[in-house]
């Protein structure tokens, strides 16, 4: 590990009862870089993310963010530094809270002032019109909701953004918009991304390095360029790649 690494995970294991969902995964992500995790459903890729975010406390191994070792109990500082965007924008916004409330919550919790201006800026940053500020989630489209979720994650000015299939619940045209938004934000803020997806094209679009997971193990780490060129080593990666190119051609 070099000191420039933002995230360092070594031998992470997660258990659900008797099932070991993640069997010793290790990877490191440099500050300002993007790391993609791909795999089929049930390969443990989302579990890695939830363990890293602190939502799943049943893990063992070693995890570091910005040189600080993570414990099961996370400090408020950790939550300022690391934020997450969820897969389903229909489930990740509180149904009885307006956009305004969702965005102000992190500011209130962390005691960050200047709420009014920050919300206006936050909406502008994800290209949402100011008119939706006081709407409820059911008055928004899927793409708008996901933008709100991204804006909420950015409110406390994190350094790491964990993306759990942020586009898979969206229409194809909206997917591209959200992906472009995410890469713009990364370029502007110098964020570190860890993105989980089952879609190789989506991951390769955003991430320079990709880890392929199968049955709770990370079977291959490959650069996005090698992946595109088809220089895969593990048969599962080859299989995933063939599947996704076949889908695109179909």
């Amino acid at each position, binding site marked *: 590990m070099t000191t420039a690494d933002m995230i360092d995970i070594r031998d992470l294991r997660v258990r659900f009862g008797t099932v070991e969902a993640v069997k010793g995964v290790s990877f490191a992500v440099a500050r300002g870089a993007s790391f993609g995790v791909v795999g089929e459903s049930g390969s443990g890729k989302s579990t890695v993310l939830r363990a890293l975010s*602190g939502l799943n406390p049943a893990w063992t191994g070693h995890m570091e963010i910005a040189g600080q070792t993570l414990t099961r109990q996370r*400090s408020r500082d*950790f939550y300022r530094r690391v934020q997450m965007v969820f897969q389903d924008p229909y489930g990740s916004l509180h149904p*009885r809270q307006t956009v305004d409330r969702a965005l102000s919550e*992190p500011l209130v919790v*962390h005691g960050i002032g200047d709420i009014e201006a920050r919300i206006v800026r936050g909406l502008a940053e994800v290209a949402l019109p100011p008119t939706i500020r006081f709407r409820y989630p059911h008055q928004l489209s899927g793409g708008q909701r996901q933008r709100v979720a991204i804006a*909420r994650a950015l409110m*406390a000015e994190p350094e790491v953004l964990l993306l759990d299939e942020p586009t898979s619940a969206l229409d194809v045209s909206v997917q591209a918009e959200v992906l472009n938004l995410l890469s713009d934000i990364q370029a502007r803020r110098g964020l570190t991304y860890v993105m989980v997806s089952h879609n190789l094209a989506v991951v390769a679009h955003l991430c320079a390095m990709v880890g392929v997971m199968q049955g709770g193990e990370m079977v291959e780490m490959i650069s996005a360029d090698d992946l595109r060129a088809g220089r895969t080593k593990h048969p599962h990666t080859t299989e995933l790649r063939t599947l996704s190119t076949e889908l695109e051609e179909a």
Partner: protein
Amino acid sequence: MSAHAEPMSRRAWLLNESPASRRQAAWGRRYRLWLDFRRNPLAMAGLCTLVTLGLLTLAAPVVGRYDPAAQDLAYRLAEPSWAHWFGTDELGRDVLARVLYGGRITLGMVVAVVLLVAPIGLVIGIVAGYFGGFADRVLMRVTDVFLAFPRLILALAFVAAIQPGITSAIAAIALTAWPPYARLARAETLTIRNTDFIAAVRLTGASPWRIILRHVAPLCLPSLIVRVTLDMSSIILTVAALGFLGMGARPPSPEWGAMIATARRFILTQWWVPLVPGLAIFVTSLAFNLLGDGLRDVLDPKQR
């Protein structure tokens, strides 16, 4: 702007799809719920009945015309007439006045019970559901203990143990009425606590109590309100039953159940004496049930 345009613009303000403030958004949501509710004639009938009953009991000194405790032994058990619309009871007291004043006691007790019970049930249920594990097991076993007894018998035992009276009746009914609400709130919390939006709140670093009070409780409230409204009738019946058994309001307080109890000696000959408080109990319970049904349709569409 002309005076004529004023109500239209308020409606437009409420129904605006792009509200300009949190207040407008919240009132707009409430207004839409009210519009939904208004479409249900039975529920509106229930609401109107309850409002009318409430106003009548508040206006009892005006509408009742008589002092509910004033005895007129020359006019014992008089039939309904112009002077006494619903007749008089065994001590010559005006039945109408007693029913109206009694409404204050009965409805007041019901409201007191609900105000005590709903928050207790809500907090216990949410805490058990959200934290799970040991807290859940302890709280739910306590709930089971209370649920295991028939409500009226447990309330009777409590009142008898303390001393008969309005306050102890309220306390006793409250003690026996909270477990279903705790159960309900727990079940709701279990489905809410694993949602992504609660996970997102946890990732802000908010404390568990903040999450419970500001994010989980508001989602449990609608079904709780519905359940409380539907339970109102059974609370009224329990209050009346305690009064009937002499464990609630003490004479000469005109509590509905107690009125029926004293009238049971002449229930067949002077039928109007127990009939009117009986009707009051029936109408109030029915109105609460209709209101509760309507509220459920509006607040909890998925449970229909």
